[in-house]
């Protein structure tokens, strides 16, 4: 500030010599804040800024706000296709960012950044000693344990492992090797599972210090050489529904200490022969456990990340499709708001805008475009 003083004094003199009428000036330094618990129809558009990936940001949007300018509630910076997760028992959001001392080069540091939901400010960080995986963003690269005592991050160096962080004590607890197994699915109160190339789940339960207490491996339940399981699952309340390349839906219950692998069934019927699931975030579930799936016709080898032309709604308990929504614009990702009353289905379309549909009817409510995001590849409903 020392350098500022002569300047401020000069300005003061300038103003005192200028003819100005009296008026109460508007206050200096007013900063907005947000509620501790965000409304159900707020979402986080996670813009990894694909072509400027070191300057990413996550934008908070109110989908109930009719004025697009006012829908933008604020933004949090993060970097290099940051991982993201929200707490529900604390007003906190976590990002795992990577920084270099010279932007795109120099010394690398990986950090877990803790943001406060009311101020959208970083309130702490934990340095990650193991380099985080770098990949196209998806949800199951970073998760909180069900008790929210630990944050789990997927590493790929190319050795595969999971870092365990205590976000309250703000300490790194350690690294758990997961050879041949990727991603993290919270399992039980304080454990996780990873999906393995051999068609199994590898499960690790952690103790109160975040150290492995037990490990186990499921029976083989899919064959990656025949019909690969897509790890980008729909998730609700500890239950996951995994699509496969060929259109099976594989339920897994992660609420207990060991995952319970359900019976897979086909999402494809005579009406939809040749269709397949696809996209960057092809699946999501609502608070009633209905599963929403992006699907495209004329599926073929390599089409598993193609945009979906429709969203199919499934009742997974009944193992049946309950609705088909034709999309206004092909979609790359789906997500749901958390409410049961009037849930919104948010579809990231191929123009990188958000198409907001009534999740119950498939009616297009609005399109949120031009809100300052380049590639908001993942959208999260506010927890």
């Amino acid at each position: 500030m020392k350098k500022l003083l002569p300047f401020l004094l000069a300005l003061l003199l300038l103003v005192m010599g200028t003819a100005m009428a009296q008026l109460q000036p508007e206050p200096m330094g007013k900063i907005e804040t947000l509620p501790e618990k965000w409304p159900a129809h707020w979402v986080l558009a996670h813009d990894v800024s694909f072509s400027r990936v070191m300057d990413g940001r996550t934008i908070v949007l109110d989908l109930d706000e009719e004025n697009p300018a006012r829908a933008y509630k604020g933004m949090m910076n993060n970097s290099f296709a940051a991982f993201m997760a929200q707490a529900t028992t604390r007003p906190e959001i976590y990002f795992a960012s990577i920084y270099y001392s010279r932007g795109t080069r120099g010394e690398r540091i990986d950090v877990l950044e803790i943001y406060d939901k009311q101020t959208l400010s970083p309130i702490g960080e934990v340095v990650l000693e193991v380099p985080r995986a770098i990949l196209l963003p998806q949800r199951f690269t970073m998760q909180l344990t069900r008790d929210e005592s630990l944050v789990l991050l997927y590493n790929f160096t190319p050795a595969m492992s999971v870092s365990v962080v205590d976000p309250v004590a703000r300490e790194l607890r350690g690294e758990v090797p997961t050879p041949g197994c990727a991603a993290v699915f919270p399992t039980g109160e304080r454990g996780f599972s990873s999906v393995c190339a051999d068609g199994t789940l590898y499960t690790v339960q952690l103790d109160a210090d975040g150290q492995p207490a037990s490990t186990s491996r499921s029976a083989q339940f899919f064959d990656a050489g025949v019909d690969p399981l897509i790890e980008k699952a729909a998730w609700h309340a500890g239950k996951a529904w995994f699509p496969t390349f060929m259109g099976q839906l594989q339920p897994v219950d992660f609420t207990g200490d060991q995952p319970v692998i359900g019976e897979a069934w086909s999402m494809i019927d005579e009406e939809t022969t040749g269709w397949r699931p696809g996209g960057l975030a092809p699946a999501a579930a609502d608070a009633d456990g209905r599963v929403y799936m992006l699907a495209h016709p004329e599926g073929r080898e390599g089409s598993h990340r193609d945009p979906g032309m429709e969203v199919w709604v499934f009742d997974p308990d009944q193992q049946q499709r309950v609705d088909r929504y034709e999309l206004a614009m092909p979609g790359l990702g789906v997500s749901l708001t958390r409410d049961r009353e009037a849930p919104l289905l948010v579809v990231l379309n191929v123009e990188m805008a958000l198409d907001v549909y009534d999740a119950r009817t498939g009616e297009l409510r609005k399109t949120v475009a031009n809100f300052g995001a380049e590639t908001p590849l993942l959208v999260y409903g506010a927890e």
Partner: protein
Amino acid sequence: MKWLDRLIEGRTRDLAQRSSRRSFLARVGTVVAGSAATLPLLPVARAQDEGSVPESGDPHSCDYWRYCATDGFLCSCCGGSASSCPPGTEMSPITWIGTCLNPVDNTNYIISYNDCCGKSACGHCMCTRNEGDRPIYRPQLNNEYNWCLGTQHQTYNCSVARVIGKAFD
């Protein structure tokens, strides 16, 4: 820069027709006065008897009367308002100054264009109007500078337009 706004927002086709744009305030801003944003120091801050500024127009639009010398993203589209910063940013204590005509009372007001700092570009509602803007050798009247000075970080998020006084015409 409206062209930049449109560029960033992906709608550039109609720019050619716009290049000689005139807003309803086009001839305002030639009278420019310096001021400071550290307002508690200033005489203008001490009088509170004239009430509030009469308003019209949309603070989310670049055409809004206060924005006559704005160059940046409008904080009103970024989680702030015409006079407050978005969550998690910091308002710069010093800034550039403009004089804009309020169409309601046909009076010139002195506007402090403080930047909100500490996060990178909002990217929403880019607005450039250069009425009263002067070259970089006259800093207090220049909107090309990043005015995130005296703040913890210099990253630029958006700009507010605070009324800090009336200018005698």
